[in-house]
């Protein structure tokens, strides 16, 4: 069976798919496929098209059985080992496949203490990455669109590498509307913002503990393993020690960048 090779963050992913085109679309349209190489893949995934029904809700049931872990949603099923290095994904359609890949990859990077996938958009300004998150409808996509022509690292799920010394953001293949042009470089994270649409622009820094409250809810993660939850706490702690979080009240135009730049 033909193999696809992709790179997400710093991880090499090997993908086989039945049919091949089913897995190609998502990775190809965001420029994450790479040429064949000899490096050992971090994650090996097999994808099967055709499972369940079209999207119903975000409810994921996690079960463990004989050293295997299963993530089950109405429109996808993931069967993986407990370290998420080898997986089979059964998906109903492209949306289900995207969400299943996010589920798997997020679990991998948390389990290996590499970083976090955060529900947010992320924009590059002066060689620094800036994250925008918020409640549903708060304006993540709006802020991303209003930031044009700045480059976007994500418009839905931001890929954040966390170390004690530095926080960096990589281009995300998990896009909603604004496709990636293929950004191979990673960027140091300068700030994080909680969005609120308003009549005037204001930016106020949050206490780290309040930032923790907010971000805990924004990490793509399906609670099932206390040890992995502890990894998230430690990763968020390092993130918040390195990067400020602000409440950003913004007008629906690009002038909010005057407060950030």
């Amino acid at each position, binding site marked *: 069976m033909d193999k696809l090779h992709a790179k997400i963050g710093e991880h090499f992913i090997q993908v086989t798919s039945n049919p091949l085109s089913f897995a190609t679309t998502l990775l190809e349209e965001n420029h994450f496929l790479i040429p064949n190489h000899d490096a050992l893949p971090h994650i090996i995934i097999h994808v099967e098209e055709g499972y369940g029904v079209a999207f119903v809700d975000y409810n994921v049931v996690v079960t463990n059985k004989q050293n295997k872990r299963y993530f089950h949603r109405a429109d996808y099923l993931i069967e993986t080992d407990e370290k998420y290095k080898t997986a089979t994904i059964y998906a109903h359609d492209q949306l289900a496949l995207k969400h299943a890949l996010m589920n798997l990859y997020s679990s991998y990077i948390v389990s290996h203490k590499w970083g976090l996938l955060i529900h947010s958009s992320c924009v590059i300004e002066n060689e620094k990455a800036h994250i925008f998150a918020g409640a549903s409808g708060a304006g993540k996509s709006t802020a991303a669109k209003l930031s044009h022509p700045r480059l976007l690292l994500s418009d839905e799920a931001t890929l954040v590498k966390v170390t004690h010394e530095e926080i960096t953001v990589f281009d995300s293949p998990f896009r909603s509307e604004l496709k990636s042009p293929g950004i191979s470089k990673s960027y140091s994270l300068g700030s994080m913002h909680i969005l609120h649409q308003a009549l005037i622009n204001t930016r106020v820094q949050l*206490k*780290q*503990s309040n930032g*923790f*409250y907010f971000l*805990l809810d924004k990490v793509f993660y399906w*609670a099932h393993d*206390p040890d992995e*939850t*502890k990894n998230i*706490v*430690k990763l*968020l*702690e390092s993130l*918040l*020690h390195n990067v400020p979080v602000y409440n950003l009240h913004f007008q629906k135009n690009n002038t909010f960048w005057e407060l950030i730049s």
Partner: protein
Amino acid sequence: MLSYIRNDKYDAAHFDNEWVILNTDKFTVTKINEIGGFCWSLLEQSQTVDTLAQAIRKEYEVMDDTLEEDLHNFLSDLLKFNLIDHAN
């Protein structure tokens, strides 16, 4: 006297003068101040209201007469959120 000890289903993050404690089983988050965090660190081993009060008075030179009552309320809250258990 009742003694208390941390529930092992937790993890804590330390920010400035505050602690955020996450119950990894129930997925609840509790924020406590610096003295609360000091108590939390001591609760790794079994403690009573008196042993905690003694340690706080020594560390922070607190002379407050209501300290024991405050500690009782604090420990009741930690129990309610499943962050500590009775040790005896």
